[in-house]
């Protein structure tokens, strides 16, 4: 599969590395060249030598998305550190480029839930943390 990942911070780069090692074609779009170094470090070799693609640019620009291969993407992951950017670019990928599987990382639990209802697939790290924290802290106290 062709996986396009927008935003390769801690979350995005980890998913990118896993996807590449699983044999997928992986393209990363990030405005910060430092993200490229993070990928190299995580892999223990050069990202490109390992077969990865990297584009420097901002996902709000259609040209950057095209250059990163959005038109061929089977999977689109919006994982920048901004909820609002992720929600916008995920909708762009879904509605303009008809990417079959789109996932957006959204830290705000209420908006993650609402957009999920609207048909945008969202993953909310905060909701997961709340659940686990409550389970760990309040276990057997009910």
């Amino acid at each position: 599969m062709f996986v396009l990942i927008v935003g390769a911070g801690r979350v995005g780069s980890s998913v990118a590395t896993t996807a590449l090692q699983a044999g997928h074609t992986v393209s990363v779009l990030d405005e910060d060249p430092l993200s490229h170094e993070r990928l190299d470090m995580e892999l223990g070799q050069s990202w490109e030598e390992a077969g990865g693609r990297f584009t420097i640019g901002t996902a709000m620009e259609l040209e950057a998305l095209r250059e990163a291969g959005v038109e061929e993407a089977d999977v689109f992951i919006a994982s920048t550190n901004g909820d609002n950017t992720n929600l916008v670019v995920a909708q762009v990928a879904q509605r303009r480029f008809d990417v079959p599987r789109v996932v957006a990382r959204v830290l705000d639990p209420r908006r993650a839930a609402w957009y999920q209802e609207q048909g945008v697939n969202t993953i909310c790290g905060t909701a997961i943390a709340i659940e686990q924290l409550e389970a760990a802290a309040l276990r057997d106290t009910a």
Partner: protein
Amino acid sequence: MSSLYVIVAGAGKVGWNLARELIGKGHEVTVLESDRRRYLAVEQELEHAVQYGDATELWVLERAGIQRADLVVAVTGDDEDNLLICQVAKEKYLCERIIARVNNPRNLIHFKLLGIEPAVSATDLILRLIEHEVPSYGLVHLLDLPNEELEVIELVVSEDSHAAGKRVVDVRLPEGSLVMALLREGKGLVPNGETVVEAGDEVLVVLQPRLEHDIESIFVSPNGRY
């Protein structure tokens, strides 16, 4: 206009001035500002009409009373924020009227894609004014009604164009377009079929957007503009 309840997201220069004008016209306004220092500065003047909080968060919008808002105007400096504030206002809270500010005109396509209209770009407006001041630039958009599929454009008739020297009735305009007015030597005139179009005239044409190219080729010669 009867009194409206307006939520303004963003207390930058645009938001602050807008709020002041709206309040002056008798409307009820709540401005939302996420920067604490900016909020405190604006609060000195607007007092209870400004609230501290990030307007992209649902609870902040709810605290501001979005359920009863007649109009939501998103004018922060961030296009993603403006887009999502309006999207949520329209689709979650069913607010009837929204207005979004677009900072980078290249983001206009995203607003259109997600149905956020009207989206206003100051850069775009100024660009149009410049085009109007410099007619040799070619085709000027005076009015765009994308939903109604109509626009009004202005063109300068060039010397060796199809239209130059012809009566309006003889200019072969495509179905769905009409010459509304001619501007000649600083004077405007409403033409009838007998009026002769002269090179150097500025013509105002109302048309369906898809005809723009055809209209341009009728009034502007291919080998050089007036």
